[in-house]
């Protein structure tokens, strides 16, 4: 693995383009480059993973995965073309292998070793799973054993689920489970599922209602819908205790900009604004977190201690992409 330490611009900015309407902004981190919209925050809040297109100006090729350590500002290139995923709050990551859009394999990596550029960070391949748009949860942790659930899309409306155990004491994947891959939610019609951190629930797009929804995963890997959100959202993420979900939604156009959108303008219109929401699954109360006019706040997720983290793509192209950390 080739690791590259890149200088990075980290700031605690004082002027915020996004408008926080709920919660206390703890910090905002600006970075160089425009990550692909999928980014992941580690459960500790100490690391961010994301992908960058190799050349965002050209319609060709895959991206490159990156791992940012917030305390030091060091940015590393890590394996895989896209979709680098932390295994919740654990010391592991699952990274796609391959560079094209065929349904690709996944590998388990040791996060600490990745950070030290240790070439032995590769623990093993996750066998018999191919797919795109992976999502990962931790089913249980017992001493050195971490039971991990990985889901991935493998064809239209076809999702696979793989449960396996990694034993860090013996550095082995559980051979009893590695050969078994199940179809996920075969009784449902859904797309773009995201697992809860405990691997027991998923949020996604219900293709029958065309709305986002939440399902419970049964022991036989069928799924029961437990909540329809009655709206279509960006990808959902669960809190670590599975009592909340967070998502972004594109808002209504800013009417003051109506004329501008109809005329030639070389920069993105302010009409397109996305905002972050949190839904409490116990009370069913939805809280709007941002109310933007010039920024798209997107792909929110939680840390293990309940901070809300999301990415901001500012309409002003001169502004750097930022990550906001909030306490609700």
């Amino acid at each position, binding site marked *: 693995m080739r690791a590259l330490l890149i200088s990075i611009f980290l700031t605690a900015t004082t002027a915020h383009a996004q408008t926080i309407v709920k919660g206390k902004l703890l910090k905002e981190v600006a970075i160089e480059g425009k990550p692909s919209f999928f980014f992941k925050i580690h459960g500790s809040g100490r690391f961010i993973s994301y992908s960058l297109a190799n050349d965002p100006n*050209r319609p060709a090729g895959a991206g490159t995965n990156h791992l940012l350590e917030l305390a030091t500002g060091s940015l590393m290139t890590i394996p895989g073309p896209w979709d680098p995923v932390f295994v919740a709050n654990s010391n592991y990551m699952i990274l796609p292998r391959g560079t094209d859009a065929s349904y690709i394999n996944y590998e388990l990596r040791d996060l600490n070793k990745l950070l030290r550029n240790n070439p032995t960070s590769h623990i093993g391949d996750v066998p018999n799973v191919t797919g795109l748009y992976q999502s990962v949860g931790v089913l249980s942790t017992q001493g050195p054993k971490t039971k991990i659930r990985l889901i991935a899309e493998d*064809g239209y409306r076809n999702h696979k689920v793989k449960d396996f155990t990694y034993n860090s004491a013996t550095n082995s994947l559980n051979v009893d489970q590695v050969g078994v891959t199940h179809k996920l939610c075969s009784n449902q019609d859904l*797309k773009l599922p995201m697992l809860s951190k405990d691997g027991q629930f998923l949020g996604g797009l219900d293709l029958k209602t*065309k709305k986002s929804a939440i399902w419970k995963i049964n022991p036989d890997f069928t799924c029961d819908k437990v909540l329809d959100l009655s709206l279509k959202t960006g990808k959902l993420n669960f809190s670590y205790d599975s009592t909340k979900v967070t998502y972004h939604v594109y808002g209504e156009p800013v009417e003051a900009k109506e004329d501008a*959108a109809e005329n030639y303008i070389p920069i*993105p*219109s302010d009409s*397109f604004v996305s905002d972050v929401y949190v839904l409490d699954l116990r009370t069913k109360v939805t809280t709007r977190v941002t109310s933007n006019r010039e920024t798209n706040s997107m792909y929110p997720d939680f840390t293990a201690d309940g901070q809300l983290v999301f990415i901001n793509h500012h309409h002003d192209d001169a502004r750097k992409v930022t990550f906001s950390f909030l306490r609700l």
Partner: protein
Amino acid sequence: MKALLALLILMSMSAFAKEPFTDKDLHQALSKNESGIIYLWSPFMPLSVIGREEIIEVAQNLNLQLILVVDPLATQTETPDPLMMSRDLMKFGVLDHYPAIALYSEGKLVKDVIIHGYEQKQTLSELINSYLNGKNL
């Protein structure tokens, strides 16, 4: 010489400056009463970039019109694709994930159909064909 170089660079940049794809453009396309595909991609989403090349082939094979539009946050790409600034498409939900495919036929968008996420060419051809033929998948 420097001035000439600067001019050439400016000309090159303006060639790829992003024009918007607005509701007016959408309704103009729909008014032709043809069948077609609207493909929204983002340079920040690698799979949507790969899919951009593939959808051209899919549209050709299916003999469908193709409108390529790009993430409104992408101010500069080396493509002529306009920025997605159609509010009707936004309300339709295309921005929720990249790539996103909307279909149109007989002067209107195919109701409730958005194909989100990368799909391989064969699957995509079958899906588009089915939706345009009114099959409720």
